[in-house]
């Protein structure tokens, strides 16, 4: 994980870009992120950076957490996230913000999806259910058969059934950073991000680049344009 931030999802809106095209964005409060412990290969067996987010009064923290923070003379924060192999050089006490990213970057957003409670197969797995009419009686949102006959005589593992849905960690990959607001520490990221408004989200540099992605200047149409201009 080269670089990343811990943030809070604020909500969704839309912005107009320079061409006047509407971009749907999720607004993420991405700072201040306080650098706490910096783990190294020698001392801890692996390289990582701990970032703290959501400044709090000291009385609101457990003594264990406060003690850990005090060890690095940090500001009291409610949430800590560790990032392995942080590619930016940092030391305890540093403050990171939204400016770690710039518009045009691609990021992954990791969050806890909204909890849906106990959900049936139609909502949870997209089953079609039965007819609403045409003589259907009490067979509207059921799953139907779940197995075969005497052989194999058992329900296959992983059979899709009703159950708890949501409130699981999910990653939305390859989202484009549309705007960065330095003053308010805001990241405007294209599209939706897992979780409710107000939830913590981890924003990290995307692990995979989108298919066919290239830096803006290297895209075929822009290369052609640049060559045409030279002529």
């Amino acid at each position, binding site marked *: 994980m080269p670089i990343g931030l811990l943030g809070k999802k604020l909500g969704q809106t839309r912005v107009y870009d320079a061409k006047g095209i509407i971009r749907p964005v999720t607004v993420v*409060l991405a700072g201040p992120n306080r650098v706490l412990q910096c783990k190294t290969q020698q001392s801890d067996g692996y390289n990582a950076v701990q970032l703290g987010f959501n400044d709090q009064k000291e009385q609101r923290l457990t003594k264990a957490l406060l003690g850990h923070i005090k060890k690095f003379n940090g500001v009291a924060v409610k949430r800590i996230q560790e990032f392995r192999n942080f590619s930016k050089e940092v030391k305890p006490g540093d403050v990171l913000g939204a400016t770690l990213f710039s518009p045009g970057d691609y990021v992954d957003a990791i969050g806890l999806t909204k909890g849906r409670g106990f959900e049936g197969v139609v909502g949870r797995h997209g089953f079609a259910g039965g007819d609403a009419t045409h003589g259907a009686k009490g067979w509207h949102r059921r799953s139907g058969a779940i197995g075969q006959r005497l052989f194999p005589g058992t329900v296959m593992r992983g059979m899709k059934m009703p159950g708890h849905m949501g409130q699981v960690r999910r990653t939305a990959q390859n989202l484009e950073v549309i705007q960065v607001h330095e003053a308010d520490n805001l990241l405007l990221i294209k599209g939706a991000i897992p979780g409710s408004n107000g939830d913590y989200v981890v924003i990290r540099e995307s692990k995979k680049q989108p298919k066919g992605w290239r830096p803006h200047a290297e895209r075929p149409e822009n290369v052609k344009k640049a060559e045409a201009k030279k002529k």
Partner: protein
Amino acid sequence: MNQVLLDKIESKQFRKDAADFSVGDSVRVHTKVVEGDKERIQIFSGVVIGRRGHGLNEMFTVRRISYGEGVERVFPLHSPRVEKVEVERKGSVRRAKLTYLRKRLGKGATLVKEREGRGAAETGPAAVQQ
């Protein structure tokens, strides 16, 4: 706190020169069109048959009869690609959405009664469509 920051982002994008028009008005919408490298203004004129959404998300629908075929376009009210909205004439209507215009043919489909102050005067162009 959350909403304050969201509002801050949105408030920057509101058009200060947002045109003042309402449903039923005949308008000329000047939109910027990019052709190759050049940008020019294209005008779409017709009757506003509805407005929906609020704040930054507000959109309005304009309907016109083009070569005998009804055409509707939806514009974002605050889009920078809309150069300006000219009001040609004020209409007097009693509906928020003028979907009934879609069934109309001929002159009645292109105009609604003109408004003069409060309440419509049943004279002038209004008489034509009856």
